[in-house]
């Protein structure tokens, strides 16, 4: 019997797209498509077990070995720097890590810049590289309203189309990292299930080429 490959997928639209790719790559698990509130799905024959987890938790499941492989956004990998292998860019869920501010904003370098963000580490690293003195306001959502309410000068967040920004009278000041979904693997799991994970990566790489 094949050893079971544990796969953590991000709940939501991106996860569904990712699962479709995995299925086409030969790692299907039909029960996952049934309407239910279950979070774990297994296909013993194919030797796979899937679980849906919060997108920002995928990297933790993989780093801690609860999942052998998973799919996580580059934003999460940059923010939490988990000790995992990053095997493939799936080129799904493409967006950019951006600095945005109220329209017409100009940075006054004479004073500390207040930055509202979910991605504290990314924001710190970005401004440290520029030698800019900043203060961080950590928020968990609705980051866009921070500059409007005067909570911050700018925000650092992922931007896909920019519609939310536009509707809130904000604009992108700078796009600094391209983001997309990545196939990641636990370092120990990769060693003991090398062949299966390599096969998964190769099949997925073939599908990415077609995109």
């Amino acid at each position, binding site marked *: 019997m094949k050893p079971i490959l544990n796969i953590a997928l991000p709940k939501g639209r991106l996860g569904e797209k990712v699962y479709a790719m995995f299925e086409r790559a030969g790692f299907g698990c039909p029960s996952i498509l049934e309407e239910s509130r279950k979070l774990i799905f297994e296909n013993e024959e194919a030797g796979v077990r899937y679980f849906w987890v919060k997108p920002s938790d995928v990297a933790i499941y993989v780093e801690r070995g609860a999942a052998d492989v998973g799919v996580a956004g580059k934003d999460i990998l940059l923010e939490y720097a988990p000790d995992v292998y990053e*095997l493939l860019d799936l080129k799904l869920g493409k967006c950019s890590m951006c600095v945005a501010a109220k329209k017409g904003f100009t940075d006054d370098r004479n004073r500390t810049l207040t930055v509202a963000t979910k991605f504290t580490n990314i924001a710190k690293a970005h401004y440290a590289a520029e030698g800019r003195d900043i203060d961080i306001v950590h928020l968990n959502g609705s980051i866009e309203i921070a500059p409007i309410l005067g909570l911050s000068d700018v925000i650092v967040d992922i931007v896909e189309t920019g519609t939310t920004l536009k509707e809130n009278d904000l604009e992108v000041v700078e796009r600094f990292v391209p983001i997309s979904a990545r196939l990641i693997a636990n*370092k120990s799991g*990769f060693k*003991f299930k*090398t062949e299966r994970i390599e096969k998964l990566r190769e099949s997925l790489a073939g599908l990415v080429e077609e995109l």
Partner: protein
Amino acid sequence: MDNILAIMSAEERAAFSLCALYERAGYQKYRMSKFEEYALYVQNKDFLVSENVITFTDTDGKLLALKPDVTLSIIKNTRVKNGVMKVYYKENVYRVSKGTRSFRELMQAGLECLGEVTAETVIEVLSLAKKSLDHICPENLLEISHLDIVSGVLSAFHIGEEARAEILVHLGEKNESAVRAVALREGLSAEQAALICRLVTLYGAPEKVLPALKELAVTPEIAAAVAELCAIVEGLAALGIKDRLIIDFSVVNDMNYYNGIAFKGFVEGVPAGILSGGEYDGLLKKMQKKERGIGFAVYMDELSRLEQMKGEA
């Protein structure tokens, strides 16, 4: 005696059996004081797994620390007259754990060889690393890298300091596309970038990887490192160690301290490496010592998971 073993935790049993293994191999137990002068860690803070150290002031005003690491103390406190000094230890160290961001006491066992380290010494240390893993769990793997091959390839293409650091990070992630992107950004041709990417894609059993390394040997230095790696694998085979060895260049230790052979040990069911080691001539040089050095540590704290899993099975 059986009763005593029964009440020990997996960590303790493993630690004692490792100590017995090193003792039989002719290594001497190294006893160290609980505290170390803080200055030692400040000077070598990049060598530490985590920068944070628990400090306190001694009665004479000296700033002391609870050891976050054992290797630095052994190097600092020993003088090798001639030949090789071989020691082993079983010690508690104090480090910040990633999950809780607070200090934890961790048990660690390991060994160090200081002095005239030869190819035989390297082979002996690797064989003891492999035997340590065998003691802990039969389902294990020892992965070996040669840092001079990695740094040789990067130097051959005149990769700058910053890009070098980036490539090493991506090499550690087995992130082929990112390594290629950095190489291309540095002005390398597609073929040259592809050669650097081979460092990511070339891994696996020695019989598969070693013959393929010739293509990487674009300078005499790299060729010498490749030959050294081949000789070491042969030496291990002569000792009967052939299986469950992997050549993998994603084992990247800090090149300011480490050089030559670097290795990592994994056992099935434990998500992170439980054994880590390598040659550290760079560290010795930084500490103004003329000797060469090689050693490894086994992190015992992860082993409780293994026992838990066995219990569940």
